[in-house]
């Protein structure tokens, strides 16, 4: 049985995490907080603990807390990540955690950034589905083994979290570049036999700021939390110059 004494000793020995959180609206700076280090703690847990107990005006986004919605993406120790799926033990650098909003997007307040420019890139890249059929037609039959379907499968699960967009240096220095997520989506549409505007999508993909601007350095793929490969999709788009639209 632990005595009261040893309990208080344990409390005294409680290891603390140094957390630096970006605070401010538009302009801002990193502010230091201390949070008890706990077992199996995620970065989102840390942010929530700060907001509940120390800084009730701290703004941040999350929803599912289990890696489904993508809304909790932030920059953690310099890298874009889903904070709900990132264990502190994996990323803390000698007990220090630096949490900032996603890069390459306008900051709104604290850890929240404006995703509108990211969503706009999808339109710009022609990544907008136009169905061949209507709701009154029978569902299209797509052969699961066809080359197109397999190519689409490989890039389909994107949940628009903007982690890859934030990881991309070309997005950072070229304001016209649509970025990896939009091009990845355009690639799934080019491989979707139900998409009625494949040629128009392909045209848009190659416009100024399209796939030709990608440097193929793969930082998008390295950081995508669900291990999609936007850079492979972009390579597929570039290949269409020699091969034409993907076959059915």
């Amino acid at each position, binding site marked *: 049985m632990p005595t009261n004494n040893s309990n208080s000793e344990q409390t005294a020995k409680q290891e603390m995490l140094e957390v630096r959180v970006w605070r401010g609206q538009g302009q801002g700076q990193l502010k230091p907080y201390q949070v008890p280090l706990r077992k199996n703690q995620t970065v989102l847990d840390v942010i929530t603990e700060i907001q509940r107990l120390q800084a009730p005006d701290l703004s941040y986004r999350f929803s599912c807390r289990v890696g489904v919605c993508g809304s909790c993406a932030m920059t953690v120790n310099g890298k874009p990540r889903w904070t709900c799926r990132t264990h502190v033990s994996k990323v803390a650098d000698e007990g220090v955690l630096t949490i900032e909003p996603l890069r390459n997007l306008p900051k709104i307040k604290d850890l929240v950034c404006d995703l509108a420019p990211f969503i706009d890139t999808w339109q710009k890249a022609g990544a907008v589905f136009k169905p061949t059929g209507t709701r009154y037609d029978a569902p299209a039959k797509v052969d699961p083994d066809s080359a197109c379907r397999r190519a689409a499968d490989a890039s389909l699960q994107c949940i628009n979290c903007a982690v890859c967009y934030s990881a991309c240096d070309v997005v950072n220095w*070229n304001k016209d570049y649509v970025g990896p997520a939009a091009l990845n989506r355009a690639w799934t549409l080019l491989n979707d036999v139900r998409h009625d505007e494949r040629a128009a999508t392909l045209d848009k993909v*190659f416009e*100024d700021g*399209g796939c*030709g*601007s990608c440097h193929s350095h793969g930082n998008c793929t390295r950081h995508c939390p669900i291990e999609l490969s936007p850079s492979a999709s972009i390579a597929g788009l570039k290949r269409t110059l020699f091969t034409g639209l993907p076959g059915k």
Partner: protein
Amino acid sequence: MKERHLFLLQRLSAIFLAPLVVLHLVVIMIAVRNGLSAEEILNRTQGNYFWGGFYVLFVVSVSIHAPIGIRNVLREWTAIPKTQVNQICIFLAVIFLMSGLRAVAAVI
């Protein structure tokens, strides 16, 4: 000309350039082994239509490939407006082509 055409042209010219550059470097290394003189070069090239064709193709590929690459660099790293970047690169392409072809004509 659309972006996709420039992209394609740059890749196609690279396909040509890769073997041409290798052969060019190999020839340089072999040629300088006995010292390098204008006479020795001219002996090899004058009236030789293989080397004439080789270097015409080389010059044309470079004149396509390099200005498109420079255009990308200028557009990514400078604030020069697009129209001016295009003009600079067309100018460079013409300079590369003219001076390159003139050099080929001089030694064949």
